[in-house]
């Protein structure tokens, strides 16, 4: 999966260097976005059959397959829990952050 890279927006020094109106190149992420997550999904790759239902349902596109393992991009996962609910094998558990 191709994901846009995070490019930190450097505040321009002069007003003329601001975009004219709020329009800028597409696919430009300026920050991570997951700070309000309360529960985080944790995958048990032993139980997982790589059916990718979780990836299809993830509203933020944060579940990816990497080297035959399911990985979650915690920089953008909001902790909604849809993946855990949809997983037929109960391979995803929602764990409270900082516990």
């Amino acid at each position: 999966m191709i994901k846009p890279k995070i490019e930190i927006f450097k505040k321009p020094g002069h007003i003329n260097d601001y975009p004219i109106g709020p329009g800028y190149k597409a696919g430009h992420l300026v920050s991570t976005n997951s700070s309000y997550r309360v529960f985080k999904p944790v995958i048990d790759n032993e139980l997982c059959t790589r059916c990718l239902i979780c990836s299809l349902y993830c509203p933020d596109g944060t579940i990816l397959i990497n080297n035959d393992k399911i990985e979650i991009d915690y920089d953008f996962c909001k902790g909604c829990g849809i993946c855990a609910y949809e997983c037929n094998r109960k391979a995803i558990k929602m764990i409270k952050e900082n516990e």
Partner: protein
Amino acid sequence: MSDNRNQKLFLSGNEAIAYGAKLSRPNVIAAYPITPQTVVVEKLSEMVESKELNAEFMLVESEHSALSAMIGASIVGARTFTATSSQGLLYMAECLHYASGGRYPIVMMNANRSIALPWSIYGDQRDSLSLLDSGWIQVYAESAQESLDLVIQAYKIAEDLNVLTPFMINLDGFVLTHTYESVLIPSQEDVDEFLPAFHSPYIMDLDNPKNMGFSSTPADNMEFKYQQNKAMLKSKEVIQKTEIEFGKKFGRYYGGLIDSYCIEDADVVLITIGSIAGTVRTVVDKLRNTGTKVGLLKIRYMRPFPAEEIIKVIRNAKSVGVLEKDISFGFEGTVFTNVSSAVAGSGLTPKLINFIGGLGGRTITPQHIEDIINELFKAINNEIHNHVQFVNLGVEVNEQ
């Protein structure tokens, strides 16, 4: 098309706007009817139907949608046109700010009409003046010819890359939208030379995908607003330049941001906006014949506001009146507030009186204007007791 050169037609203000729009070759037109604007979009629909005009004609379900459609089309670089009035303008208020904040050079005609309640279809200027802060360039036309010419100029000004600000052309409802006069129609060839197709680097296209209309945090929002204000201020010189260029090409010049008449030696100056300026001009002529030193100052552009230009021409006036079809309840008319602010910063100390007239289509006659001018002469050497006066109220209001 050169056989069209100097063609003269008998047109209403609304029809003149439609001809002006047609000659400007808009790519997309959104139409939602409202009295007294409806004829504009009706006429344009006929032009599109007969293939006189090659444009996408969108029938939308509301004014909010009309302007939203214009924003979408403008984002991909289309030249856009729509028209509205009164309640319709208020209904698109949210989109007015979207369009100016997004820096989309949309051109829109507004037929000045009173706003409910009480419900009324007749003219006054409370609709557009209540949206003076929406970030649009606002001009007030006096004649059908000026209306047509303004549409062509509007695109040139709005699309200037230093301006990129939407443009509202205001016509007094019925008084200007529905009255007929002979109007010169410039040739398409001449208009094409004056107004080439719009090209902007700030648009969305498939080869250069953009994220349009993004959100901002407190760290950046204010910079965008600063930039918007800077562009609006910059539009002053672009308006002036465009007027001069238009005058050279088509032989008609309207004075730029303001238009003054018999003002150089005037002791009394009456300031106004829109079509009532024509009536004031005839009264000034009459009074000048009897040696009365009175002049007219018509403010054409309310935004950007021509403060310096106004101060320059009223420098010698002892008494200045502002006649407007508007009131900001609990204070005074908005045109007067703006003029007073300009005067306050200038060091000038003329007597200032605000005359509120024509609300909901109430007549303002030459006699009323003569009375106003007499009142302003009286004010020169007397204390003003009431600096906001209603014209032709038609009922006794003195408290017993």
